[in-house]
């Protein structure tokens, strides 16, 4: 598009963010692939995959922030869209196994042979083609979100009620995917992947490429979000968040706006899930657990909702902490930590890390030039009055 669009989308902090992600996405794989194993700077492959996971979580966090931070829709079921994207990718990877499975069936994945499936269920058709799977990564979560949102927004279900029914939605999917006869591997989910687009999924090179791709995905998602929140549509979303009914009286069809961002956000979550699955090597119904979705929300809260950089940062920080805690002697205390995080962030840090820093910077700027009137927020706009009834 025009330079106008670019300058609008890429302000200073956005540019810095993109540069950092790009640098990480290029440098880490190179350090992994080019340096000899005994070099102190060599990044082991397992770390590449771990970081890749964080990056996928960051994309998920962005998608949540887009609807929660900017439009006030608190989805407690976004894990469902993530998992659907993951399943779509997992189905492709399953079909790639071909006759290398334990049972050696060229068409049926192992679990189907085990469960006495005679032929491939119709909804598995086409997943042997990457383009089709990639399409489904977008369509499956997108259509679900569209249908769900259409019903919910049209009848003006808002606030906590909406949150609760999104939670019910992911829970219903959890129950469904746990069933063996649902045709998605039941309890065990999809795993034992062999290769992706012809590359061995375990190979260092593939891992590094997947990591780089995830970083690219993060940059893409970030740009899309920036484009949206800096457009006039972004202002409408904030208007909806702060005073939904007022926005209606101005002649905006609020439900269309909500439906648009909700669907877009679900697609983004789906992409995150699709990038996540080949890096962790498994997708199972546990991803639909309501706890996962709500945990993703807390990443956003920690980083600062209504600030896109904050959402991504929060995902990485919280998950890094989780890795550190759950793998050490402190493992039994992780849930205490996580629970406390929920409480403390909502009580003491309602704007999150970035939001608080921004507010502090703004305050200082305002003090510096006492009668300056431009105190624009760095990254989107934070609702100033959170105590409002």
């Amino acid at each position, binding site marked *: 598009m025009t330079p*106008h669009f670019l300058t609008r989308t890429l302000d200073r902090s956005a540019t810095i963010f993109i540069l950092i992600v790009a640098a990480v996405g290029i440098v880490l794989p190179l350090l992994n692939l080019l340096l000899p194993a005994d070099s102190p700077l060599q990044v082991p492959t397992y770390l590449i995959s771990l970081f890749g996971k964080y990056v996928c979580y960051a994309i998920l966090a962005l998608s949540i922030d887009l609807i929660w931070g900017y439009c006030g829709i608190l989805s407690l079921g976004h894990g469902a869209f993530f998992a659907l994207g993951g399943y779509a990718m997992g189905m492709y990877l399953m079909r790639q196994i071909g006759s290398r499975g334990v049972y050696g069936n060229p068409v049926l994945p192992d679990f189907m042979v085990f469960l006495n499936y005679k032929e491939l269920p119709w909804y598995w058709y086409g997943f042997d083609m990457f383009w089709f799977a990639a399409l489904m990564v*977008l369509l499956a979560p*997108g259509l679900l979100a*569209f249908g769900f949102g*259409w019903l919910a927004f*049209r009848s003006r279900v808002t606030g906590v009620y909406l949150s609760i029914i999104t939670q019910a939605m992911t829970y219903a999917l959890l129950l469904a995917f746990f069933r063996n006869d649902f045709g998605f591997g039941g309890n065990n989910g999809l795993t034992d992947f062999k290769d992706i687009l012809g590359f061995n999924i375990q190979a260092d090179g593939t891992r590094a490429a997947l990591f780089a791709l995830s970083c690219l995905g993060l940059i893409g998602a970030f740009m899309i979000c920036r484009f*949206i929140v800096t*457009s*006039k*549509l972004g*202002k*409408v979303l*904030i*208007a909806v968040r*702060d*005073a939904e*009914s*007022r*926005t*209606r*009286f*101005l*002649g*905006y*069809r*609020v*439900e*269309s*706006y909500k*439906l*648009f961002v909700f*669907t*877009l956000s679900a*697609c983004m979550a789906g992409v995150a899930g699709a990038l996540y699955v080949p890096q962790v090597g498994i997708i199972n119904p546990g991803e639909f657990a309501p706890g996962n979705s709500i945990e993703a929300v807390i990443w956003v809260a920690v980083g600062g909702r209504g600030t896109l950089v904050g959402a991504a940062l929060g995902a990485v920080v919280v998950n890094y902490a989780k890795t550190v805690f759950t793998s050490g002697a402190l493992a039994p205390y992780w849930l205490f930590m996580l629970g406390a995080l929920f409480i403390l962030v909502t009580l003491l840090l309602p704007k999150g890390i970035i939001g608080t820093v921004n507010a502090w910077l703004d305050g200082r700027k305002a003090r510096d030039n006492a009668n300056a*009137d*431009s*105190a*624009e927020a760095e990254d989107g*706009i*934070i*609702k*100033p*009055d959170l105590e*409002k009834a």
Partner: protein
Amino acid sequence: MVAAELTAIDPQVAAREAEARQKRITSAQLYLDGVHVSFDGFHAINNLSMVLAPGEMRAIIGPNGAGKTTMMDIITGKTKPDEGDVYFDGTHDLTLLDETEIAKLGIGRKFQKPTVFESQTIQDNLLLALNVDHSVRGTLFWRGSRGEAERIDRVLETIRLTDARDSLAGNLSHGQKQWLEIGMLLAQDPKVLLVDEPVAGMTDVETHQTAELLKAINRDNKTVMVVEHDMTFVRELGVKVTCLHEGTVLAEGTIDDVSQNDRVVEVYLGR
């Protein structure tokens, strides 16, 4: 992934609309007839009938709880009447439309409790109010035009907030918020303006200025309905007055007529 516009107009409604347009029930700009609303058995509006001619300005008075705000809710689609007809332009049956559609027809509203978008700048508040393309696609790919910028400048001028254009609306004083909301009405440029208690929290000077502003708007051939308690303000407007009480019209006429009406006096002063 652009969401399809949701249109609440189903074929039946469209058919009724078309029928009404042909018949053109009335030549009035706003037409309420025999309207009833009750909340949980409480009759907030009782057999309310009122007609506003195009270009007319009308002041509505009445004690607290008389149903003035509820009447505006009905006109703007926030509350659906249990009974009765509400027509705009003699052609649009407002009881069948929702808030968005009614706003798009050209009915603007200022709320009793000023509601502006507090976390956005004053300028953005006005930008959001401008009556340009309100579709998802339109706003997503919106690029400001000189015309729009000029309109916003003009409104800022009118509501005396040019200097504060970049500060957050949430930081404004109560009176300034009232003005901003009136400014948003101006930007919206509707055919009918419903103004609910515009001078609450204003100084005398500001009250006077507001009255002047509303008269100016009315001179622009807009239909205006003003709800206000402040009698000096109503007097200053110098227009026909309707007094509501318990959801129904108690008296109608010039301010002097109405304020000498026995029943009005009784309602306001008690017996």
